């Protein structure tokens, strides 16, 4: 009786349904374990050795499946647009977080470190783990840290907007350039030289695009977070 009272019907049905579903999933998956087959990834690995960069994931993300990334950028762009649309207020509400001394000094100390780490992750994305997404977000979070700690500071909207416009337009233009030069959208028209494999300047458009992606992601992320921060204060 006591169980019945504390657990609502919804909880019980939710638990039962999800448990049954998962048990059936597990049952099916365990009965049919995947075998080792030739997957598209293997083909891409071979392809990468002829025209890619050291970090294969970067090649895949930026070049082989670059169109997905363009779409992903578009998702982020639309989301930040939506967040802006929802939370934008013309009233001037500055950030009123009462930051203490600890936070202030720590942010001063951490800011350059995170920025440099972010930029490294962004620029070396084609050689080591990381890339535009992570780097962009890291840079954005560094700026965010500064924003939280220093209440007088605010990144002007125009700067973010200019950065994001520049990055977005140049990404599509690079894609269109490929279309123009060799009839293939997002084609790596800078003809990568395999001899440069593993160097900073290698892989044709790949590092360039990833940096553009980083700028775009960073600015969108900064925009979203700034809007959320601004909004969450004028309660």
């Amino acid at each position, binding site marked *: 009786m006591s169980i019945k009272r504390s657990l609502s019907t919804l909880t019980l049905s*939710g638990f039962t349904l999800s448990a049954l*579903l998962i048990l059936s999933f597990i049952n099916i998956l365990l009965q049919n*374990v*995947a075998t080792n087959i030739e997957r598209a990834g293997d083909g891409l690995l071979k392809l990468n050795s002829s025209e890619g960069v050291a970090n*294969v994931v970067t090649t895949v993300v930026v070049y082989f*499946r670059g169109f997905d990334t363009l779409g992903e950028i578009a998702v982020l762009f639309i989301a930040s647009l939506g967040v802006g649309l929802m939370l934008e207020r013309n009233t001037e509400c500055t950030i009123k977080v009462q930051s203490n001394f600890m936070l202030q000094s720590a942010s001063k100390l951490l800011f350059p470190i995170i920025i440099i780490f972010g930029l490294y992750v962004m620029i070396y994305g084609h050689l080591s783990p990381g890339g535009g997404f992570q780097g962009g977000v890291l840079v954005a979070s560094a700026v965010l840290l500064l924003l939280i700690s220093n209440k007088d500071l605010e990144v002007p909207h125009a700067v973010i907007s200019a950065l994001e416009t520049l990055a977005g337009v140049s990404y599509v233009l690079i894609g269109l350039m490929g279309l123009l030069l060799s009839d293939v959208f997002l084609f790596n028209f800078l003809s990568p030289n395999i001899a440069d494999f593993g160097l900073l300047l290698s892989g044709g458009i790949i590092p360039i695009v990833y940096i553009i992606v980083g700028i775009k992601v960073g600015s969108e992320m900064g925009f979203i977070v700034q809007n959320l921060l601004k909004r969450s204060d004028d309660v």
Partner: protein
Amino acid sequence: MFEFFNSPEVINIIVIIGSMLLFFVGLFGLLTQKHIIKIFMSIAIMETAVYLFFIGSLFKLDAIAPIMKVADDTSKFNDPIPHAMILTAIVIAMAVFALGVSFAIEYYKLSGKTNIDTMNEMRH
């Protein structure tokens, strides 16, 4: 006795059961929780479970992360496509949550509700 856990088959089973249980936790949250942030969180947990299942099912014990040292070295790497896909999916999911949260904030401003089950003003 720990050798038993190192065979690929066992790891595969662990991954399947583990990620599906995580999926179950998320699904359970989705079906039972009311607060909108917890709904988003449950969805995020479900997505994480799917990502773990994907990466976990396709990783090979003897392979290494797909970062090549030299140009013609193609063997012994993990499949890079799942990594790229999951990368994309994570960012997309985050964007959707940011948007959803901003909807929720604005809706709360207007109606003072965070419980998704009470969000039914339009019962015509």
